[in-house]
């Protein structure tokens, strides 16, 4: 961390990496990607006998799996220290916060209840597993549909999905965890630490919260000492982040519902879209090169401008000691510009996002994942964004031949750029076409 508070990957201190939420073909399968951290959650259900102490309540099991696939130092078999910690944190976040209506899972009091099981698998470990896992788990739970049952006397019949529409779980609220990493005895604070940052951090705080600003779990661990106001400050940041992430999840769920309803393409298969996967080496080289150059220039400008505003903006003090900072909280996205008058800007921003999302839904039917760039406008990132936009545009041209393939791309960076500065006309024009 230098004086200008840029992290190794170019993010600012309170920025998340890019978050992507994808769903599987089956209900209750969710794939969350934060930067290079990939996590998959799968919900399943079965009928069991309830606990004797709570005969009217269904059961919820949460299990987190750290396989050696995710990182070489994870061992298969007995859960490691980290595995136990992750599992317990998810358990506290989902189970002890009672976010799932377990009473509605009762089929016959004391005899038969549904047991819901969430298996969270870490596919790739690049730090901040807890946030990714909690997002995946709660999204999967919300996405999940259990089969309907009929009870006649002692007889319980589970109706097949074809006969009767499956039922969603009663989700009271959506708790999401936000992780903070502390350095130098709490002097520096980072949101969403990646693996490298996690290795060198002094301690970590995980805050689980829902959009009603209710804390469901808070955990401060590590060998460092903090003051009370530092904790309170983190909860403020977390509440902003949670609002945004909830919005993202809701958006993703809404899109999925829409795709399923309209018979569009959904599920993980469609997310493995060739044009997206190969977007770094697209065939349209000439076009890409030109555009990245321009965009890089653009990004640099934005960053510079952001720094200027940083210096100018009186509400924002990027002092090393976080206790010195004002009461305002950070926000996701767009690292260069960190003005701290959050509330109003953010709202307008979100409106913008939705607006653009809508246009995109109409125009761009391509990759089925909802990609929302919450990273920063480092040159690399914007490069990636451009390729996507281009691909979308490119395919948009051939839309008629492709037909309505299920896809939505929300490009937040574009949205932000557009909101922050006079529209970079060329690019916008393409999207709108």
């Amino acid at each position, binding site marked *: 961390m230098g004086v200008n508070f840029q992290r190794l990957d170019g993010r600012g201190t309170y920025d998340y990496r890019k978050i992507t939420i994808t769903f599987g073909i089956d209900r209750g399968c969710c794939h969350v990607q934060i930067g290079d951290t990939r996590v998959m959650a799968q919900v399943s259900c079965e009928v069991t006998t309830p606990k004797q102490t709570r005969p009217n309540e269904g059961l919820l099991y949460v299990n987190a799996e750290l396989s050696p696939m995710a990182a070489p130092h994870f061992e298969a078999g007995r859960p490691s*220290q980290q595995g*136990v*910690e992750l*599992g*317990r944190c998810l358990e*506290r976040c989902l189970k*002890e*916060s*009672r976010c799932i209506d377990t009473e509605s899972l009762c089929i016959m009091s004391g005899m038969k209840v549904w047991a819901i099981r969430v298996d969270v698998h870490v596919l790739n470990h690049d730090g901040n597993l807890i946030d990714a896992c909690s997002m995946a788990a709660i999204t999967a739970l919300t996405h999940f549909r259990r089969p309907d049952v009929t009870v006649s006397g002692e007889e319980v019949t589970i109706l097949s999905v074809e006969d009767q529409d499956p039922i969603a779980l009663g989700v009271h609220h959506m708790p999401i965890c936000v992780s903070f990493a502390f350095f130098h005895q709490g002097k520096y604070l980072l949101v969403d630490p990646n693996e490298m940052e996690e290795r060198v951090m002094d301690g970590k*705080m995980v805050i689980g*919260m829902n959009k*009603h*600003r*209710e*804390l*469901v*779990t*808070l*955990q*401060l*661990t*590590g*060998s*460092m*000492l*903090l*003051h*009370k106001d530092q*904790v*309170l400050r983190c*909860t*403020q940041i977390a*509440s902003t982040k949670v609002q945004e992430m909830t919005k993202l999840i809701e958006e993703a769920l809404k899109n999925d519902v829409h795709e399923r309803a309209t018979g569009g393409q959904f599920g993980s298969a469609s997310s493995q879209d060739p044009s997206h996967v190969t977007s770094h080496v697209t065939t349209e080289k000439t076009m890409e090169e030109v555009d990245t150059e321009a965009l890089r220039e653009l990004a640099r400008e934005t960053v510079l401008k952001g720094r200027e505003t940083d210096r100018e903006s009186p509400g924002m003090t990027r002092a090393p000691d976080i206790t010195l900072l004002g009461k305002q909280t950070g926000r996701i996205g767009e690292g260069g510009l960190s003005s701290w008058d959050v509330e109003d800007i953010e709202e307008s921003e979100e409106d913008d996002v939705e607006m653009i999302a809508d246009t995109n839904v109409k125009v761009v039917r391509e990759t089925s994942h909802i990609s929302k760039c919450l990273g920063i406008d480092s040159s690399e990132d914007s490069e990636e964004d451009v390729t996507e936009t281009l691909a979308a545009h490119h395919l948009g041209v051939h839309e008629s031949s492709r037909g309505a393939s299920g896809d939505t791309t929300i490009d937040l960076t574009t949205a932000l750029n557009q909101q922050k500065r006079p529209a970079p006309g060329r690019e916008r024009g393409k999207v709108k076409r």
Partner: protein
Amino acid sequence: MAGMELLSDEGFRIDGRRPNELRRIQCRMGVFAQADGSAYIEHGNTKVLAAVYGPHDIQGSKGRAAVHDIAFINCQYSMATFSTGERKQRPRGDRKSQEMTHHLKQTFDGAILTHLYPHSQIDIYVEVLQSDGGNYCASVNAATLALIDAGIPMKDYVCACSASFIDETPLMDINYTEESSATPQLIVSILPKSEHLVFVEMNSRLHEDQLSRVLDIAVKGCSDIYHILDRAVKEHLMEASIPLSSDT
């Protein structure tokens, strides 16, 4: 459980305490001869024994992963099979105990001056004899006393206290009944002199705006506990060192 009110209209809790009162704390240091340091503590009906061995040479497989320029702290949290209302099958090794072990280790990693003992290991064994809520808090307080008894240098005492929030009232040091009735639960460990937080854990739902008040009462509880512990330590020292001083 239904119909039971945790806070009466007169402002008394289920065990007759006021919201800002601790349970009775009794403690004793040096209960084992074999261990380098040991202590026993009671928080109301929660009873915990702690024993500390070390610093000594690194032993066992766990220590192999240790960093060698600071002392390695090895903790073991276990609950006696008879400690809970329902007999426990496994005294240790289940998820919750493992988590607790991990939390104890982290708590004391921050408080013990580990850099003074390179290539060494400090063992902290905690046994819950009777559980009535606040097991973590009692364990931390007992372990602190045991560490002091063992003469292991620490920055400060580590004091832990729990808190809850019922009927718009923050409660200090909650017992099992209060803990198990879907109320928010906040556990805090602090270094009482500087009021630095070493460990914080929160469960169940609590609105963000209330956190500050609940945190305050937990910290207040910790500093109350500190005064009780400090008095016990001083008494223990007087007992131990006066004959010594008359002799040297």
